[in-house]
Each structure stands twice: as C-alpha cells, then as structure tokens.
C-alpha cells in the first residue's frame, strides 16, 4: 500500500483514539452554606439530659422572625430529636452595631414552657443554644452533663449523598453530634462541620461512634470506628437534593 493511502488511515485512527467523554463520572458538588448566620437549638429534658419529647414545639417571635429559616431553607421550623438549626435568610445580615435578636419559645406537654433570646452578631456565625426543659411540678435538679474527654485530633470529611441523584454530591455545612455506638447516652455536640470538614479532639482511638446531623426536619446518621487520624464519610442527605 502506498504512503498516500496509509497516512490518512493512520491519522483517522489516532484522532478517534481520544473519544472518552470529558464529563464522564464528574459530579456536581453543591454546598449547603446558604444560611450563614445560624444557631443550633438543642432542647433536652432537664432531669435526664435526653432529647426533648417528640411532641415538643418551637416558636420564633420578634421583629425579625419572618427572616428566620431552618438550615435547609424551609420556613417550617420544627424540632427533630429535640434539635433544629435556624438562621437568618441570606439577604439579611447583622450589622456591627445592630445585632439581630429573636425569641425562641419551647412548649411540650407535661413540661414547663421555656424561652430563650438568641442574638445574631457579625462576629459569631455559629452558636449552640441548649434549652433544658423541666417537667411540670418536678423538683429534681437539672442534670449536669460533664464535658467530653479530650483525645488527639481526628479529621472527618463528610460527603452528602443524594439517593435519587447520583450525579450530585453535597458538601454539608451543619452542626454534628456524636455518641459511642450502643451507648444509651444522649448525643453530644461534636462541632460545626464547614463544607464537609471538621477536625475534633473528642474521639477516642479504637472506639466506634455514631454521628448525627439534623437537617431539613430529618436526622441522618453514620457510624465509624476510629483507628486512624482522618476519615472520609458519606452520609445520605436527601433533604439537600431537592432542586
């Protein structure tokens, strides 16, 4: 075969050898830090430290109440396992000399009502508000939960999974709680996970932990035995995939 016949054939084969789709297996990564100024509200039974009963309700009042949303962007704010994260809608931010204050009211059958004032300031984007509620007529002193022991640092990177959208990944910015797997104790606050990342010194080597987040009115859990200094964990977050 002459050179003139071979060359175009060779060229064509070479060009066609690079036909993998550029976007193959590429996922769209979406952050959840839409609401920047947030407060994690954790309502517990004052006498036991356990999560508030399921029928516990929360109300938001004050001049800026209409600008308060649940962390997933929902206007419907309710407690799940005694927890909810609320925050200012993204177009409203506190000023240096003009913080934004709201009032939170807690009501639960058989318990005294409780209320707390929450203030959003420019210097504090995250805050945890613990609200213990006492049973009506109870004289039991509130339980004091000791701070968890401190260990070496462990880095956790969480990826939110959308069960119905495998082409999308979530980078959650949420408050995360933990407890030892199998323990009957209440979940304790681990920290704020910023864009999926958290470094903590509250995890003991060779222990297995349950991690819990509350987002969009649902709780999501994952567990992991701690044997090294960093882990990548995947957690289902269907409430973050509704777009």
């Amino acid at each position, binding site marked *: 075969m002459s050179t003139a016949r071979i060359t*175009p054939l060779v060229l064509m084969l070479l060009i066609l050898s690079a036909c993998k789709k550029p976007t193959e297996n590429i996922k769209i990564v979406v952050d959840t830090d839409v609401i920047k100024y947030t407060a994690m509200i954790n309502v517990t039974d004052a006498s036991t430290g356990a999560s508030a009963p399921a029928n516990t309700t929360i109300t938001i009042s004050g001049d800026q109440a209409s600008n308060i949303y649940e962390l997933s962007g929902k206007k419907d704010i309710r407690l799940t396992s005694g927890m909810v994260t609320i925050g200012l809608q993204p177009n409203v931010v506190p000023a240096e000399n003009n913080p934004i204050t709201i009032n939170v009211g807690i009501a639960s059958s058989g318990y005294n009502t409780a209320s707390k004032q929450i203030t959003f300031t420019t210097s504090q984007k995250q805050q945890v508000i613990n609200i213990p509620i006492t049973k009506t007529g109870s004289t039991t002193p509130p339980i004091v939960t000791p701070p968890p022991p401190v260990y070496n640092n462990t880095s956790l990177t969480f990826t939110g999974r959308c069960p119905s959208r495998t082409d999308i990944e979530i980078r959650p910015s949420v408050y995360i709680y933990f407890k030892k797997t199998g323990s009957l104790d209440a979940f304790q606050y681990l920290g704020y996970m910023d*864009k999926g990342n958290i470094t903590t010194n509250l995890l003991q080597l060779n222990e297995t932990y349950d991690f819990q987040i509350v987002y969009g009115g649902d709780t999501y859990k994952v567990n992991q035995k701690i044997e090294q200094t960093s882990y990548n964990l995947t957690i289902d977050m269907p409430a973050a995939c509704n777009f």
Partner: protein
Amino acid sequence: MKRRSLVTFLLLGLICKETNAQTDSSFQSLKGQQSLQLNLGTQGIGAEYVYGVLPELALRGGLNFIPLKANNVFKISGFNSTSNLSADFYNIHVLADYVPAKNLSWFRVVGGFAYFLKARGDIRVIPSDDYKYGDLVLNEDQIGYVDLTVDWKGFAPYLGIALAHTFPKKNFNVSVDLGTYYLTKPKADITGTGLLEGNSSQTPQFQSNIKDYRWLPAIQVNFSYKFKNN
C-alpha cells in the same frame, strides 16, 4: 444561509479547479523556490513562508491562530445549565514538505512541529434553572458557576499530507493540508464559585477524562503566491 452555501460552493469549485491544475505529475525541482501562503482551516487562519531547500524538500514556517467563542455547546448530564465556551489556539510552526514520488509530485508528506503559545479551552457552566433552596429562591451570584479549563501549551509534533504542488506553477495555487498535531499532555482544572465552589474536587476526574485529548486534527486550505522561481 444561501449566501454562505454559495460562497462554500464557489470556494470548493476554486479548490477543485486549482488542485486539478496543480496535480499533474510533471515534476519541477523545489529547490530555490519561495512563496507566501495564507491558510484557513481547523487551525483558524494563518500565514506561512515556504522555501525549497532540496529538489524534493521544502521548509515552511508560519503561524496560526483561532479565537473561538460559542454558547451552549456543552452539557452536563442531569444538570440544566447554559455554557459559554472559548478556545484560543495560537501556534508558530516549522514544517517540512517532502515529495516521496516524482511521478506524484502533487502529493507530499508533511512533518514538523509547532510551539503553541496558547492552547486553551475554557467552559463556564451556569445553572439555568431558578435554584430553590428550601423556600428560598437564590440569585445567580449566590448559586455561582463552574469553570472548566484545559491547557495544552507547549511543543507539538505534526504529521500529515498535503495535496497539490508545493509551489504554484505560475503565481498562485491552492493546496490542502490534512494532518494532526500531537499536543502536550493537557492540564485540566475545575473551579467554582458560590454554592458550586466545591467542584474543584472534581479536577482529578476531569484530568483523567481529558488526558487522551492530545490529537489536534488539521484540515487546512492554503492560498499560495510564488514570488521567486528556482
């Protein structure tokens, strides 16, 4: 549309006529001949100086550039978006034209290399749907965009063929180049803004997908003017 078709038709007619005129097999030594040529093709537009160094061998040096912009040519599956694509390829090159058979003097094997001063493709993907986050409707700035960039800057060898004589028999001719550059291994990158900032984590996958995109085909029509005979 009709005007473009007519121009294409006339151009093809011109190429056929000129190529027929230039593909007779009578061999004329290339040595000492010189020409300038303008070209148009997949490399964009460019210009070359051609010099015959041996009876069967000519060298050409030149440059090409193609600034390209297009909208909505790129889609990510399952993600409603608009896209803005821009591609910029600027090269300087040196090629050797060799006539392998004197009785087929209109056929040349062409080899050489180019240095791509710029060889870059950029795609900006912008979500086209209103993004509802719970009960909140987010604006474009809050949602952000994703930029995908591929860079092939560097040296690239070239291999191809050319049809029609290297130099015009008289003053002008039209010839055709068919070939390919083999570009350097591309450097791919993904960046994002707003809620899409985290997409930089997809860079390794994008790099892996794009790593074999190194063949840059060249189909080009050359319009030559000979200013010196041997």
